[in-house]
């Protein structure tokens, strides 16, 4: 075979990958992502396994963290301030919001620093970098699952039965995930270059929580601010989660639609930004 022929061969063979200085940021490398799905699985598993290593309470922390926050909220907002709680017992009201909130907040906290925390991997091995924020966002699902089981127990204690709206629950959990992923993609890519992100995150999350109806109901937000307030996708997530589980006021389309649009935009631009920055991760990190 002549050399030219061989060259022809290698160029046209579908098993051959070709790469140069830059690639299209619209190519999400879904094929690579799919091929390396097991790596995603192992990274999530690693996250889960090491999270509570060498702790006394182990997975108990997954229940305890939202539970203790709930107690504090109940004392301050439920007893002292007497915030309305849609007619539900305040502890349930707060706990049912803390679950999706923690799912989101943990996802963002881990996702945003996930690239830098795994700098060693990024500079030594190739894999689709998207795997890191994905793993970080999915891993808190285990904590969520445990805390959720505890919530069902609490509801039984208060003799509350879940409504048929329960079937909507996965939708709102999914939205919490997508929001966390979108925010993580932006922050993670920025964090590679500017480590300021790590320091900004605790504050960002705290502010974001108070801008979400975790400790109080949506109804106490003044009418004229509700449009702006509703742009926070976590409002839809939390209101929807409560409604699906406990009944009460359903989130209105005027709340849900802008939130969905915003998440889609944030996620789309986040992916593009991530893919653009990704090309220099290994050089800059």
């Amino acid at each position, binding site marked *: *075979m002549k050399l030219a022929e*061989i*060259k022809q*061969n*290698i*160029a046209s*063979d579908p*098993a*051959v*990958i*070709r*790469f*140069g*200085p*830059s*690639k299209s940021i619209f190519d999400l490398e879904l094929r690579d992502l799919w091929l*390396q799905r*097991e*790596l995603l*699985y*192992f*990274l999530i*598993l*690693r996250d889960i*396994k*090491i999270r509570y*290593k*060498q702790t006394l309470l182990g997975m108990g922390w997954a229940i305890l963290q939202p539970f203790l926050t709930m107690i504090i909220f109940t004392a301050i907002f439920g007893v002292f301030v007497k915030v309305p709680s849609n007619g539900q017992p305040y502890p349930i009201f707060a706990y049912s919001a803390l679950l999706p909130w923690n799912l989101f907040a943990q996802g963002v906290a881990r996702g945003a620093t996930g690239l830098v925390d795994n700098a*060693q*991997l*990024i*500079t*030594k*091995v*190739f*894999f689709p970098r998207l795997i890191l924020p994905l793993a970080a966002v999915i891993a808190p699902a285990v904590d969520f699952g445990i805390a959720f089981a505890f919530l069902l127990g609490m509801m039984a204690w208060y003799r509350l039965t879940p409504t048929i709206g329960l079937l909507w629950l996965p939708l709102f959990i999914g939205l919490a995930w997508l929001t966390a992923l979108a925010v993580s993609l932006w922050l993670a890519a920025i964090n590679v*270059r*500017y480590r300021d992100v790590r320091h900004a995150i605790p504050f960002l999350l705290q502010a974001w929580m108070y801008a979400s109806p975790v400790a109080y109901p949506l109804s106490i937000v003044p009418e004229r601010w509700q449009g702006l307030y509703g742009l926070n996708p976590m409002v839809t997530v939390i209101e929807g989660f409560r409604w699906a589980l406990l009944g009460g006021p359903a989130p209105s389309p005027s709340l849900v639609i802008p939130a969905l649009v915003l998440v889609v935009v944030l996620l789309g631009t986040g992916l593009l930004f991530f893919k653009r920055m990704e*090309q*220099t991760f*290994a*050089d*800059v990190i």
Partner: protein
Amino acid sequence: MSRLAIRVEGLSKRYRIGRFQGRTPSGCGQGDDRWIWALRDISFEVREGEILGIVGRNGAGKTTLLKILSRITRPTTGFVELRGRVGSLLEVGTGFHPELTGRENIYMNGAILGMRKSEIDRKFDEIVAFAEVEPFIDTPVKRYSSGMAVRLAFAVAAHLEPEILLVDEVLAVGDARFQKKCLNKMEDVGQHGRTVLFVSHNMPTINRLCPRSLLIDGVLLMDGPSPEIVSAYLNSGQNTAAAREWPDPALAPGGQVARLRAVRVRGRDGRIADTVDIREPVGLEMEFDVLKPGYVLLPHYHVFSEAGALAFEAVDTDPAWRRRPRPVGRYRSTAWVPGNFMGEGMMYVEAALITLEPVITQFWERNVVAFQVLDPAEGDSARGDWMGRMEAAVRPLLHWETQFEPVAEPLGIREG
């Protein structure tokens, strides 16, 4: 004739150096940034089943080339075409987590290196046996001795079987017996029709494993049969060989009084050693001819670490020839560097000789020989039980003392 597995064309990589990137938003992308080319216009092709060696001095761009081929970083210009699954071993134990057990780390590390779970399942017993850690497989790796952890990491890497394997100097850790085991495993991989790119400073290994090699120094200097490449490299002045000789006196460096004929690195057994155990003494041998009688000579060495730091200097203090004019003849002076003294990594030697009264430099050869110092991490070196980075150019094993007095009450309480 087999198909092409790798085609590289016009590959260049430029890095920004000099200062920390992106420290302030305003300082990004302009100002006093300097750029260096790590690689320029590299082109070559590799056929399926070939084992290709890559040779070059430190900083020649070997690792950058592997990083581009494994898609960790992007080239600045040019392109790469690869046929088949690529596995890269730029480091051993990437992704190892001390809190996870040996078993969990095998799966984690395997997945990171690109192995399928089913593949790891299949090879699991083999990996454990290879690493010789069977009894501890369900113990967290943080409880392993450092040697065990290294062996486990190697074992996973050694069982990686992609179509194209890119290997950086990773085999240069661990004890000699285990290293040999890994090399044999690599040879096996080559015989199974896989394509291997192998970066090494170890010339005998390159000659043994790779029929063909590339010599690079930012650019591709040579591409050909390994024996030719290796000898070109060793004679290029940028070599890192453990021995260097000047058989032709006309070409040997020297002045009117003395002329250098050879410099060699010898192990304790007297053999030329390009790799030495950190715990063992190393002999730096200098062979020179004295052409004119009646001068007091001072042979000496400067030894540099891989990072370019001057690790130590040594001046001939042999009482037999100290302050004594030397007659004409051939001399062979050996300085013995004690074990447990130098740091890990490549050490580069400068050999020099001056006459005293008057002080005249007869020869001063930079980077004349080099050798690699390895710490097998078995717990009895200055590393102790620490397995992480140690950066100093020297690593003396010091005598440590501890004084301890039991205190009935915790300090400070009495004062309030």
